[in-house]
């Protein structure tokens, strides 16, 4: 057991656990941050997609010991604060398109979408960009996700 300090959604946190515990479990089981979901624990389904220092990553596949004290982790719960609003434009686009069905994958989908748009640096979102998103939605909301990303990107 050792102490691990980093920042989550703008707040400094310190947790005591083993170095090898993956960040997803630290967030969910120890810190009670439940927005990132477990869908595989294999860095495949992307349901836990969150941001580290503004870039998307999957906390299921990162040891807590590999997180630096200066690292800024943002989960879906902290996304609106990154734009100083009640909702991030991508979340609003998700509402406008009524994307969610069961909703389980949607926090990860939104976090992946925001990171995708940011990575484009203002260039338009292409069909190939959308085709390349790996996040699973077993309800099959993919078509509305594509529409929402186009809308959200226009307002980011």
């Amino acid at each position, binding site marked *: 057991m050792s102490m691990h300090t980093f920042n989550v959604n703008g707040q400094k946190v310190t947790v005591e656990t083993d170095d090898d515990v*993956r960040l997803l479990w630290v967030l969910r089981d120890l810190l009670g941050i439940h927005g990132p979901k477990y*869908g595989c624990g294999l860095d495949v389904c992307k349901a836990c997609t969150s941001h580290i220092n503004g870039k998307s990553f999957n906390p299921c596949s990162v040891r807590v010991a590999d997180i630096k004290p200066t690292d800024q982790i943002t989960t*879906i719960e902290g996304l609106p604060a990154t734009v100083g609003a009640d909702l991030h434009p991508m979340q609003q686009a998700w509402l406008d398109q009524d994307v969610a069905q069961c909703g389980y994958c949607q926090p990860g989908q939104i976090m992946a979408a925001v990171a995708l748009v940011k990575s484009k640096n203002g260039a338009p979102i292409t069909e190939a960009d959308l085709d390349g998103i790996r996040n699973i939605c077993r*309800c*099959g909301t993919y078509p509305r996700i594509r529409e929402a990303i186009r809308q959200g990107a226009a307002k980011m």
Partner: protein
Amino acid sequence: MATRSQQSRKHPAGPAMAPGTDNRPHDHGDIPDNGEAARDGFSRRRFLGYLLAAPTLVVAAELSLSSTRSNQADAAIPSAPGPSDLFDLGDLQNLAAAPTSGLISIQVNADGTASFALPRAEVGQGITTSIGMLIAEEMDLPLNKVIVTLADARPELLLNQLTGGSNSIRSMYTPVRVAAATARARLVATAAAKFGVDVSTLKVSGGVITTADGRTATYGSLAVAASSSVVITLPVQLKPQSRFTLVGTSQNRVDALAAVTGKKVFTMDLVVPNALPTMVCRPPSINGTVKSVANIAAVELMPGVTDVVIVSTGVAVRAATFGQCIDAVDALEVTWGAGSEDAQSDATVLAEIRAAQIPLVVPPLNLLAKTVDGDFTFYFRSNSPLETNCAIADVRATSAEIWSSLKSPISAQAAIAQKLGLPQTSVKCHVTTGGGSFGRHLFWDAAIEAAEISQKLKKPVKLMWHRTDDFRHGRTHPLATSRIRATYLAGNVVTFEQRHTSVSTDFSHGLGEAITSVAAQLPVAGNLSFSETVFELTANVPYNFGVTTQLLSEVDMGFHTGSTRNIYSPDVCTSTELMVDKIAKTAGQDPYQFRRAFLKDARSIAVLDKVAQVGNWGRTMPAGTAQGIAFHSEYKGVSACLVEIDCTPATVNRKIRDAFTGPRVTKVVFAVDVGFALNPKGIEAQMLGGIMDGIAQTLTSSLHFKNGIPLEGSWDNYYYTRQWNVPPTIQVIVMPTTTGNPGGAGEFGVAASMAAVATAYGRATGTMPTSFPINHNSPLGFTPLPLEPPLPLEPTNGLTSGN
């Protein structure tokens, strides 16, 4: 292995199925059933609502009320309607509930909201939104003032708490409205008394009652005054559909904000004191048993681990985090006994199914008749949602409390009580919101396992299945074959025989027991198994194809089965529709025009015409690409789908890492007529999901069983539709109201889209596909995760792997 090979026949002209015969049950009680005739201005049907004794206004209605009417097909030419045309699975579910009615109740609160505990499960299908709309409509209350939660298991409802068969709206439509209308009537009467005016002078809008001279009272302000200290019955009339202002319009989901902010609470997000993460170490083949464990004490000393215990499904570990559970599971040294299906792989299962097939019997009628045969295979498909099997259990000496997404909570409660040796009334089952279902939550595999572990440990547990286990030990849609023989003579299809043979589907989720109470009232031959009854009530051939028979036979094996979003229909429909294309080709006719000529009624032709027109059927397509078209009817609804597919080498061979790409569906046009769409936007969402399933089932997704266990262990192995498979263009058309009665929608999108993708693939490649998904027998596209240790290592490269 026992082979069960019973058969049932759809008599083409049995007396119980003669056109014009309404053999449906009538509503019990003395209320005349003229159903939704009211919307047309006929005499309005009166229902009895109840005021319950409570400190605030609580109204109730019998859950068994039904407004469904006979919905006969207009069979004008050869084929008589099959049983499912007259009386389908949803009717059975409605009927099964009737003798065991219970009350559902709506409470009006002092803050002006109305709350309702829905005895159904929300698993993403949007039922809480649709039910909320019905209550808001009937009460004249804004939708955001209706709070719909999920009811705990209510044994007094007996069988009427099952979410399945796309039946929720069909069974809840009338009872919910009666309860809401009762609330409105009572509130209006209370306001009339308060203001000393006649009820007829009051106007209601947005939960506010206004007198002719402008005085107002909110529902909230009347909630206590409107309450009753005794139970009172109150005759009420329902608002006619012609006056609906909310129901029938597109509404966004009531839980959307929670979903996009991460605040939607799923089972594993619940905080139950001391319920620590728990996982199970499972055998290397299904139904394997624990012989011995060499190192329980050592594993108990691992970081974070609190407990290790042998249970009936493996070895359970409880720890501070799920990560530490995974480490402990992999550290266990277990000697396993054999599994039940260790000798079984896809090929051996298929061989057993083939041996059980019922022969096709129709001989060529004469030398001029053309016989068209088809033989189709459908491999195992996982019904795993994104949220794996999970449950929380807190079992004490004399009671137990369970939290899980349960679509049949009463049956779950009974099974868990039996397992624990407790009275059913001592087991409280909370129904949580599910992260998808696709058939999986009809069963309580995680709940009963969590209960057993909690009882053995005498501690609360938060049990979650690992993704790999969910694919390998979770339930699967059964492997099946479908054989069809049709004869074509002088411009007509004169016979159409279908023989569907399947690994048996597990229907032990409660509905099965309901059938015994109503068996005598079913319009199908007696002594059928429950599977056969379901088959009879869901399968149909929608075309006038002369003498039509559809038979099911099943083979009992030890696989963990369950239906995957729709029961037999997608496979039955895909086989049928491929054969329709083949017969049309034999007849030298266009697939669309051929279907149009043989479909049984105007509703069916309307959806087919719609997709043909909107999708520009028959347009010239480049080589290697093609259109396909298909039709499906079920759940008192009709649907048609047109797709365009690209099977050119450049597309089929496109590379995306760790992905199956293959043919790409480039366009989908889907038209659906559910009779009356309560929320067209919600219907569209369900169709979109069904289309994604249909694409997956035809092109990409299946389980490969080898030596008693599937090779698939992750979403990069089990090829459910991903963004790279999604059609760039999709249009869903929700048809205007036809019957006025809402049909089922949750599963309805799968069959026609699966079939349309198959027909398009056949036309693009020039070869009719006969084995599904089409990639199943290609070389495996992934390296299977190892069977031991049972769980794959958690990656550590998440900061460098990129997304």
